[in-house]
Each structure stands twice: as structure tokens, then as C-alpha cells.
């Protein structure tokens, strides 16, 4: 793996907590100026990875190189140059907005004034409330304050651990708009998220599940890894459609996707149009005459489910 100027290079990183394997031989590289997504459900290892690359946790094996520095040996040099927004709200609720920001600036030996240009796109939106206690802010404003605090020392790389978890669909969209403004300044940003639809807002993503990287690529390319022809199926009785498609002898997978179903067919040699026609005929024999079947390009969530295999088992 080349390290020529890459702000983050992770090679064969592993970490266990007792019986739990949090990171299993993880390798990835973030390129200069990239908005990089770590996409996957809880328990995937995203937080552990952040804790290793921000020097808060020692790996069992492998290396992490942050801004050309080694995450184990050069921890002090790294700490002053990375910005990290942990998943849990970690500000002081009894301090005001401005006091929180001044505190974080002073920890890094700087001031709000020195960091102002960097935080301005975000901080300006909450500056009218600078005297309000952080604990009394709305969820969206807390998030903007936390992001301002992670940026005030003008870091060279930014790590955001699930900034949009539990946030509604509209506020999530607005948060990503902010990240794109930050990205325009050239700052490399690594964002973890459990929401598959947010992968499309990244330059490249790593799909992570149970400590393993399933795939790394541009969002538009991820779908190419889907192993079967895929079809969107629509009809009035979705539950009957689901049953009928699952009973199809060549079904590779059938999943609900909002108001349609996604059906993957195991016959790789057959033309998609011929498969669609044959599946329509199959559904007609079940009395589902109104069903529409159309070939589609697989998305991130389709691909994630195909690559993740069976969901995590509950071990005794």
C-alpha cells in the first residue's frame, strides 16, 4: 500500500476484547482531501478503529499511520493534529456554548479567534446562542457545537464517529451538507455511519461488519460487487409478492426495500429481460397479475447485505 501523502494508512489492524474480535485484519487507506465513510451497523468495529487511529487504544497487531506518524510511537504528535468527535455527546453541559469552545481551544494551546476561519461555516449557525448552556441546546445545535470543538485547533484530519445516529432524515442531510463545505477546504474527513444511504455522500467508503472490511470503493462502484442480476418488483400485495418470490426456484435473495421488493436471481447466464419475463409469469401463476418486474442497478445496501452473509449469530 502506498503512503505517499495519504493522511491515514491502516495495515492489517486487529484488536480483541476478551472473546470479542473488534477488528479482524483491517486494512484501508484514506487519500488526501477525501471524505471517507466507514459504513456498517453497530458492533462493526468502527469505534474501535477510531480509538486506535486517535491513539486512545493500542492495537493487538498491525499498524496505523496518521499524517505520516505512527499511532503507537508518535501518539503525542498525532493528538495535537487530529480532530475527533466521539459518538457520545462529550461536551460540558454546564458550560456555555462559547465556554466549551474556548476550553477545547485552550487545551490545544490556541484560541477561538485563531481557529475562527476553520470553524466559521458551522459555528456561525450557533454563534447567536453563544451564551446558552450546552446542555440546553437542541440535538442539532449540540452536534454543531461538538463539531466546532473538534475543529477549533485546525486539525489536519477529522474523525467523526456516528455523528448522525438517532438524527432524523432531514437533519442528517443538513449535516452532510456541512461536511461537504468542510471538505471543500481540503480537510480529509473520516465519518462512521450505520445509515447505508449516507454512503452516497462520501468519495469512497469501506463497508464494515463484525470487525471485517467487506469492500472499499467509490459508492457508485460498490454495486458492481453484487453477485447476481437484481430486479425491483412492485405490486399491490407486497406480502404475497414476498412469499411468491421466495418460493421461486432460482431466487438468490428477496428483501423489502421501501415500497418495492428487491429480487436477486441466481441464473447468471440468462438475459435480465428474459429473467424479468419469466419471474412475471411465475407471479401470474400465484394470482399476482399486477406485478411489475424491472432490472435495476444494485445499491450500497443491496451489496452490503449480499457481502455480509448471515446476520451475526447469538452465541451461547
Amino acid at each position: 500500500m502506498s503512503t505517499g501523502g495519504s493522511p491515514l494508512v491502516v495495515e492489517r489492524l486487529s484488536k480483541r476484547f476478551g472473546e470479542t474480535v473488534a477488528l479482524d485484519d483491517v486494512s484501508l487507506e484514506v487519500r488526501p482531501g477525501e471524505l471517507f465513510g466507514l459504513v456498517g451497523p453497530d458492533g462493526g468495529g468502527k469505534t474501535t478503529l477510531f480509538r486506535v487511529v486517535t491513539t486512545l487504544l493500542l492495537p493487538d497487531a498491525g499498524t496505523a499511520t496518521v499524517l505520516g506518524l505512527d499511532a503507537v510511537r508518535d501518539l503525542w504528535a498525532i493528538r495535537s493534529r487530529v480532530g475527533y468527535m466521539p459518538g457520545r455527546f462529550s461536551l460540558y453541559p454546564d458550560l456555555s456554548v462559547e465556554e466549551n469552545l474556548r476550553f477545547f481551544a485552550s487545551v490545544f494551546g490556541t484560541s477561538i479567534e485563531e481557529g475562527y476561519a476553520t470553524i466559521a461555516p458551522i459555528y456561525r449557525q450557533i454563534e447567536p446562542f453563544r451564551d446558552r448552556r450546552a446542555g440546553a441546546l437542541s440535538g442539532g445545535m449540540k452536534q454543531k457545537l461538538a463539531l466546532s470543538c473538534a475543529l477549533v485547533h485546525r486539525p489536519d484530519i477529522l474523525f467523526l464517529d456516528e455523528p448522525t445516529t438517532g438524527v432524523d432524515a432531514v437533519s442528517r442531510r443538513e449535516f452532510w451538507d456541512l461536511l461537504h463545505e468542510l471538505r471543500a477546504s481540503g480537510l480529509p474527513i473520516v465519518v462512521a455511519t450505520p445509515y447505508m444511504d449516507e454512503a452516497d455522500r462520501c468519495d469512497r467508503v469501506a463497508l464494515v461488519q463484525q470487525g471485517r472490511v467487506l469492500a472499499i470503493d467509490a459508492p457508485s462502484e460498490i454495486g458492481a460487487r453484487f453477485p447476481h442480476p437484481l430486479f425491483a418488483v412492485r405490486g399491490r400485495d407486497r406480502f404475497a409478492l414476498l412469499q411468491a418470490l421466495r418460493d421461486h426456484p432460482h431466487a438468490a435473495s428477496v428483501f423489502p426495500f421501501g415500497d418495492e421488493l428487491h429480487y436477486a436471481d441466481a441464473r447468471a447466464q440468462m438475459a435480465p429481460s428474459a429473467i424479468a419475463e419469466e419471474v412475471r409469469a411465475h407471479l401470474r401463476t400465484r394470482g399476482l397479475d399486477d406485478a411489475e418486474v424491472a432490472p435495476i442497478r444494485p445499491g450500497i445496501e443491496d451489496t452490503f447485505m449480499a457481502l455480509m452473509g448471515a446476520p451475526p449469530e447469538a452465541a451461547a
Partner: protein
Amino acid sequence: MSAAIDVRGLTRRFGAFTAVDAISFDVRAGEVFGFLGANGAGKTTAIKMLIGLLAPSAGEARVAGFDVRTQAEEVRRRIGYMSQRFSLYDDLTARENIALYGGIYGLSDAAIRERGDAMLDRLRLGHAGAARVGSLPLGWKQKLAFSVALLHAPAIVFLDEPTGGVDPVTRRQFWEMIYAEASRGTTVFVTTHYMDEAEYCDRVSIMVDGRIAAMGTPEALKADSGAATLDELFVRLARPSSAAGAAR
């Protein structure tokens, strides 16, 4: 047959702020009802009133036929509740959690054993009954929590973001459990931030600034508004002008 949930002019004020502003709706028995809204729109306040944890400032709500204001105890006996934040005790095993909640709901030891075994079987979790809940994968924990919320066979179950952070396959399995429960006649009242899940509901309401801005079947809501998806409609309602988002 009376509605499972019947809400008329329900209002809650905190000082000068009106968190829930005279909302009215009803939910039929056996219906899967999606209760959507942006953060801060008043969803949590409304749910707290429906489950008898918070007194309304005005208006009324009947849940399972009982008044939430004067008969909160009767209401609580007939509902189940789970959320991502509050579900099960991590330091207890699956069986201990079942026994604890069964006891709270007033089930006999025999009933707890019988229903608990059936539940673990159904979830294919029999082998994990002795495992600490904290050691289970999140998706399993949420499926177990849902089942525990149904242990006392409530008429209505309230699910507050039950699938947050859960992997996409387990998330869909969870919804199949919801459908199965609704087909047995249980009313399901659910909140979610996943807009594809909103499409799985029989009807949804979208709350904006304490009021219900839209309500109906997903198909009707899309047809009436001209929005291609519920996500599009949600964005349109929650942020009438894109500039309004900046202050939040």
C-alpha cells in the same frame, strides 16, 4: 369495535412552549402505525402522554379504551414498550430478563416459563437463554426486547426507534416480526428514522412543530403530495424553506 388509540386535541405545554399542539388521530386494532417527525417535533412528548407517563395540558387520549389521564394504570397494563435506549438489562441473562419483566407484568411463574421457552424457541435463541444480554449482537438484543415487550400479550405495543444501528438484514427480520404480531391483532405504534421503514407501515403520520402535518397510507400521502417517496415528502414538510434548517 373501538379504536386501539383515540386522540382528540391532545396538547402539552412546557411553560410558554407548546411541544404538542392539539393533535387528533386514531389507530385501528391490528394496524401498524408509523409516527414520524424530525427531532424536536414533539414525538417523544406525545408518546409519553399515550403511555401514561406525562399528563396532557389539554385534550384527551384513550389507549386500549382507557383514558390516559384518569386510568393510566389500566393503560400501562395493556401496552408494551421498547426503545433502543431502554430495552433489557445487559447484566442479566435472556431468561432473567424474561423472568423480571414477566414478574413486573404480574405473570405466574408457570406462565413466565412457558411463554419464555416459546419465545426463545421462536427467536431460535434457545441456546442463548443463559447468555448475558450484553453479550448478544445488537440485532438479537432488539428482537429479544421486542418479544419481552409482548410477554404479557398487550393490545398495543409502542416501538421507539427499534432498529437504530441494526444491520440491514436483521432490520428486515425485525419488520417481519412486526407484521407477524400485527396479523395476530396486536396494534403496533412505531417511530423510525429509516424512511424505507415508513413505507412498511399501514398508515403514517408526520409531525412538524407539535402538529400533525400529514397522515394517511404511504400510497395516498405520495399520491396527494406528488412526492416520489416518503423521504421526499418528509423533507418538504419538515423544512418548508431550506434556509429554516440553519437555526436548528
